[in-house]
C-alpha cells in the first residue's frame, strides 16, 4: 500500500539530504526509518524520556515530537555526526571512560542534551547539568557517572579539545 509522500530537504550531520517522507512522519521516524540513523531511539513516544534527543539548529529536541516537515531546510545533528575522522567527541570519550553508560540505549540522547548545554554554558554546575537533563531518563546508571562524565568533558572541551 502506497501512501502519499512529499519531498523535503535538510542538512543532517553536515550533509544535505533529499528525501520523500509521509507528512505524518516524525523527525524520529525520518532519521530511523528513512535514513537508518538509529542512534535516535524510540523510548516513550510522548515527549518525555529523551531517548530520541537530537540537535535541531543547535538546540536539543525530542525528535519523537517534531514533525519531519518541521525540519525542512534546517540542520540536524545526531550522535552519528559527533565523532570526527574516527576521533570520539570529548563527551563520547568521557561517557566511555567514566562508565556513564550501561545498556547504552539512552546514551546518545543524553550526550546530545549535554552537548547543547555545554555549547550554552561551558562550565555548568552539577545542579545545572541535572536540571538540563530533566528531559532524559536513564534507568541503569542512577545518573552519578553521567554527571561526572559531563563535568570531565566540559574541562577537556574548554581546554580546546573540541
Amino acid at each position, binding site marked *: 500500500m502506497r501512501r502519499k509522500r512529499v519531498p523535503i530537504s535538510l542538512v543532517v550531520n553536515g550533509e544535505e539530504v533529499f528525501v520523500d517522507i509521509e507528512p505524518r512522519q516524525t523527525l524520529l521516524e525520518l532519521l530511523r526509518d528513512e535514513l*537508518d540513523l538509529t542512534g535516535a*531511539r524510540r523510548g516513550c513516544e510522548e515527549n518525555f524520556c529523551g531517548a530520541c534527543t537530537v540537535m535541531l539548529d543547535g538546540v536539543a529536541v525530542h525528535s519523537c515530537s517534531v514533525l519531519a516537515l518541521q525540519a525542512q531546510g534546517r540542520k540536524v545533528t545526531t550522535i552519528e555526526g559527533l565523532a570526527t575522522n574516527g576521533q570520539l567527541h570529548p563527551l563520547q570519550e568521557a561517557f566511555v571512560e567514566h*562508565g556513564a553508560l550501561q545498556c547504552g540505549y539512552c546514551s*546518545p540522547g543524553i*550526550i546530545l542534551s549535554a552537548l547543547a548545554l555545554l555549547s550554552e554554558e561551558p562550565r555548568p554546575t552539577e545542579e545545572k547539568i541535572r536540571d538540563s*537533563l*530533566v528531559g532524559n531518563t536513564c534507568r541503569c546508571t542512577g545518573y552519578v557517572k553521567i554527571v561526572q562524565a559531563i563535568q570531565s568533558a566540559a574541562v577537556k572541551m574548554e581546554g580546546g579539545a573540541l
Partner: protein
Amino acid sequence: MTELQAVGKSVARLEGRAKVTAATQYGVDLKFPGMLYARILRSPYAHARVGRIDTSAASAMPGVRAIVTIDDSPDVSYNAVYSGLSDKFVKHLVQDQHVFDEVVRYVGEPVAAVAADDPLIAERALELIEVDYDPMPDVLSAEAALAPGAPLVHAGSPGNVVGRPIVFQMGDLDQGFAEADLVLEERYTTPRHQGIPMEPHVCVASWDPQGKVTIWTSTQIPFRVRFVLARILGIPEGRIRIIMPEVGGGFGAKQEVSIEPICALLAKKAGRPVKLELNRSEEFACTTTRHGAIMDLRMGAKKDGTLTAMDGQLILDTGAYVAHGLGVATLASISFTGIYRCPNLRYQARVVYTNLPISGALRGFGQFQVLFPIESHMDMLAEKLGMDPLDIRLKNHIQVGEPDPRTRFIIESCGLDECIEEGARRIGWKEKRNDHGEGTVRRGVGMSCIMDVSGAKPFLPEQSAAMIKCNEDGSVALLTGVADTGQGIRTTLAQIVAEELGIDTEQVHVTAGDTEITPFDLGNYASRTTYVAGMAVRKAAQEVKNKLSEIASEMMEARLEDLVWEKGGIYPKGAPQKAVPVTQVARYAQHTKAVSVMGSATHTPPHNAPGFQAHFVDIEVDTETGRVKVLRVVAANDVGKAINPQDCEGQIEGGVIQGIGFAMGEELRFDESGHPINARFSEYEVPGPDGLPEIETVLVEPIEPSGAYGAKGIGDIVVTSMAPAIANAIYNATGARIRHLPLTPERVLEALDENRRAGAGDLS
C-alpha cells in the same frame, strides 16, 4: 598471589565506543530484506471468553501478509519461565499459558497478531479484526481473589491459589514466641512495579527452508527462550537459534518468553522475516511486573535483642498466569530466613491468580516483598527494646561458618559488619540519629541490611559454560552464553580471561548470547553471571594457559613446572630476561606447531555465595506537605572481590536510584475494570536526573572462596534497601511509621495523623 593486572581494575566497557557512536545494533535497529512488521491485538477485558474472530476484512487489506489467532496457536500449554530445566523441575511446573487461549485473563492479553509491510498497516489491520467477547466476572486484587466464592481465574485452581503454599518451618514457633520478651505483629504491602528497560521488548523471527528458525530477541535468557520455544513450536532445540542483539536493559522484565512465540508463528505463516516491537504503553501495561504482595509478619525477641521467633505469611499476586510466581515465593524464603539468625520460624507463601497482567521477575527478585517488612520490623523491635537499630542487626546477622537455614549452605564470606560500621560512620549515624531539626521540616536517618544470593542454587541447576580460542596474534575469542543486558558482564569476563593469560582486556574478543555459537548458560538473573560464568570462564582460560605453557616449555626448552607467567610474558623461573611474550607463543603454536589452542569448561557452583549490604539514608520530611526528600545515601556493599570496581559502583548507584523510585513513587495502578491508569512515562514516576540525593558507594571486598578471584553477585540486592531505609528514616525524623509502599506524601500525612491521634502529640 602476584599483583593483579586486569582484575580489580576499572576497565572501560569493551562495547563503550560502539555504544556512544550508535554503531551497536539493538533489536529495535534490525532490518532484513523482505521483513514484515507485526502488531498485536489485545483484549480490552480483564476476563472474557473469546468467541468468533473474524479476520476477513483485515486479511483483505493491501499489505497485510499474515494474521495469527487461536486457530494458529499450537495446542500446547507452557510456563514462560521454566524455573528449572531438569526433568525433576519441569514435572512440578505449572503450565497455564497458551500462545492464544479461549479465555483472556487480563486487559492486554494477546488475541491475534498481524504481520504487514509496515507497522502502520499492521496497526490499521488490527482495527479491522472483529472479536466477539463474552465478558466474565473478574478479580482485580489478591484479596478479592481469595474471598470466598470469588470468580476463578483458572478453572483448575480452586480459591485462585496456585498449587500448594510454599512453606518452610524450623524449630518450635510457639515456644519461640513464649520465650520472647517482646512480640510484634504488623501487616505490610508492596506494589506492582514495572522494570521499564529503556529498550522495549523486540524480536525478529526468520525461518529457513530447512524448517529452522532464527530469532533475534531482546532477552536476558537466550537458552531458556530456546527451551520454551522448542516446546511451544514442537521442534527440537537444535532447530531454534536465539541471538541476542545489543540489549537496552532488562532488570527482570526480559526474563521469560514473551513475544517470541507470536513472532515465530507469524514469520512461519508469512514465509518472511517478521519484526515485533512493543510500544511503550504495551511495555507498561502488558509486560510482566513485580508481584504485588501482602505480608503479615510476627517476630519475637528477647530483651537483649536476640530473635526467638519469626512467622511470615506472604500473599503474592501473580496476575493471570503463574510464570515466576512460585520462583519468587521460593527465593523469598531465603530472603526471609537468611540474614538474621532465628531458631524458630515459619514462612508460608501463597501465590494467587488475579485478572491483572502477569507478574514476573524484577530486580530485587524474592527480596522486596519480605525484606521491606523485615527491615521495618527490625527497627521497630530495636526501638521497643531500647536498642540502636545497628546493634540489633549486628547481634543477629548470619556469620561466616554458619549455615543458611533454608539452603544449609555454609556462609564462606560476609562483610556485613564492615558495611554497617563504615556506612554508619560516613552517614554520621550517631550525630544525626537524634538531631531532627526544628519546625515543620524534620531530618532523620535510616538504614537497612540485605543479604542476597549469587545464583539460584539449590532451586535451579546453576551452570555456565565457556569456550576460548587462541588467535595467532595472541588475542583470544571468548564464547560465552551469558546475556549482557547492559550490566557489563562481557567486560568483566574479558578481564578474568586477560588476568589468567596475562594479556590486555582489549585482546579478549567476546561473543555472547547466541545459542548456536556460544556454550550453554542459564541467563542473566539472580546476580549470577559474575559468580557462575566468571568461574567457567576462568577455568576455560586456565586450560588455554596450560596448553600454552606446554608449547612454551618446548619453545624455551624449559621444564613446565618452572615456567612463570608474568605481565604478558612467560619465562623459566629465575630468568625473566628470557621472557617470551604470550602472543609469540600463540603464534608459534598455530603456525609452527599447527596446534589450535582452545579451552572450554562448564562450571556449576558449590553454593550461592550471598552478598550483603548496608545502605543508609539521610532525609528530610516536610510535615505539612508529606514530601520526603532523600538528601544523601551511603551504600556499602560486600561484593566479594570487585572484578571491575567502576561497574560495581555503577550497579550500586543505578540500583539505589531504582530503589528510590520503587520506594517513593512507582506503582502500576489499575481501574475497576482492570485497565492500567498510569501506563506511561509521564504518569509512572520513574526517577529523573534532578532532585536526587548524593550517593556515596563503599565496596567491601572479602574474598569469596567459591567465586572467580573471590567475586560474588551485585545486581539484584542493590534495589532493595531504599524502601525500608527511607521508611525507617521517616520514622526517625517524625515518629510516623509507614507499612505500605510507595511512601507517597499522602501516606506520610496519614501516618503523621495516625500518630497524632495515638497521642504522640505534635512534633513541634
